[in-house]
């Protein structure tokens, strides 16, 4: 114990008051490594987010509209994958499945784990949105001869997804940050890349500070993007979002509504 604290003190002493400023370290060591990691992080997000939303929609539809056995299965899905800690889920996929003969690469295990977790959370936001659509919308669609499937696809989903944007984008931001957990199943994403440099060069504040900035940038970008999307999809006259354009399209240079041919 005494040895440990002596070493600890020595390390603390060695590190204190020292932040690397040499351009060679920043430009040729840290940035390339973290940049490489960033690419992997982006790739993870790109693989997970669309699937997470798509499966989230399907699970939510099953819960709201499918007959009993299917809606029950969907409910179990949500209970399990929302209830299981993400790290434990990743460990099961990566370290556990080989014992029943399924060998997954780290990246694949991470994508699967993230999709399962992300879609379970998304489905709850989307379920809430689906249930908030007035029943008259479905009834009117059916009265025109649409099948239930058509009504869900063309009437309910477009309206519900608009309402789900704030929740789903919240989940998207979580996703950006919990991709760092892929580190635990050997994926060299941004956090892992930074950690390797940090250990090797004893440059913790530099490496993790930079990574923190990168995550912040990603999250800011996502926030900006989803806000833009929300405004773009706002329903004129209905959604309480400030829209720059007038609530209906006007003929150029007049106050007359535009005629449709």
């Amino acid at each position, binding site marked *: 114990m005494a040895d440990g604290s002596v070493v600890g003190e020595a390390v603390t002493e060695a590190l204190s008051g020292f932040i690397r400023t040499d351009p060679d370290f920043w430009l040729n060591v840290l940035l390339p490594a973290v940049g490489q990691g960033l690419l992997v992080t982006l790739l993870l997000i790109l693989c997970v987010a669309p699937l997470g939303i798509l499966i989230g929609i399907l699970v939510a539809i099953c819960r709201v509209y499918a007959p009993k056995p299917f809606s029950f299965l969907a409910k179990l899905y949500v209970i399990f994958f929302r209830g299981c800690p993400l790290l434990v889920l990743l460990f099961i996929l990566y370290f556990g499945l080989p014992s029943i003969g399924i060998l997954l690469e780290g990246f694949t295990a991470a994508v699967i784990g993230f999709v399962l977790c992300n879609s379970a959370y998304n489905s709850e936001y989307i379920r809430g949105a689906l249930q908030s659509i007035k029943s008259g919308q479905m*009834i*009117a669609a*059916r009265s025109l001869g649409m099948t239930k499937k058509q009504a869900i696809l063309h009437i309910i989903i477009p309206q519900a997804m608009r309402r789900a944007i704030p929740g789903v984008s919240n989940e998207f931001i979580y996703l950006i940050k919990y991709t760092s957990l892929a580190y635990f199943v050997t994926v060299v994403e941004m956090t892992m890349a930074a950690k390797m440099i940090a250990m090797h060069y004893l440059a913790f504040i530099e490496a993790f500070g930079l990574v923190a900035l990168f995550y912040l940038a990603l999250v800011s970008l996502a926030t900006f993007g989803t806000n833009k999307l929300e405004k773009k999809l706002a329903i004129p006259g*209905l959604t309480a979002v400030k829209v720059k354009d007038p609530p209906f399209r006007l003929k150029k240079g007049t106050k007359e509504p535009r005629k449709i*041919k």
Partner: protein
Amino acid sequence: MSGVPVLCVENLSKQYGDLKVLKNISFKVKKGDKMVFIGPSGTGKSTLLRCINQLTKPDAGNVYLNGEEIVHSGHKINEYRQKMGMVFQNFNLFDHLTAVRNVELALLKVKKMDKAEARKKAMFELERVGMADRADYYPAQLSGGQAQRVSIARALAMDPEIMLFDEPTSALDPELKREVMEVMRKLAEQGMTCIVVTHEMKFATSFASEIFLMEKGEVIEHGVPADIPTSPDFKRMREFMGAYTEE
């Protein structure tokens, strides 16, 4: 007017728990008929309309559209529903679509028309209800009367043989009521077969070719509106209408 019934309702019954909402309702609708159902709230008038186009499954009885039985028609009901346009008390326009998109959506997805054709038809129907100049507006930007006219155009676009109006003016103020009723009268003049549920007594008597008074799930009196003031068959009807006009 030909004598072939467009719609034939036989012994229609519906029950929610212990509450009998419809009890053995039967009537026939010939082409061009304007059947108007009046009666106190909660007597099953709206349920009747919904049991006709099977938005609500009746417990017993049959509905025939042009002689074809539709209660047990399975998936074919989607075809039959196109022939029975429905207009709702709360309009139920699709909130995320402009007026013209509301009208053309079912043309594209159900009738599988191509885009140009559907747009042309949708604009024609909007013109018919005097809403062509608001084609690009979203439902939330329309007044109640305008929204209801768009919803009538939406139903008309499917070329229905019969229109079902479920209290189309109940959510509107008197002035907006008038614009919707005018559209309905115009349709009737063009020979459209209509079944209307309404609380507008004046409109009911001037519009109907046959008027029905419903109470507690049953038709208790029916006949030609001209007979209402004098016929002994219309005792309860006079009472009911009197209660309305006194206000």
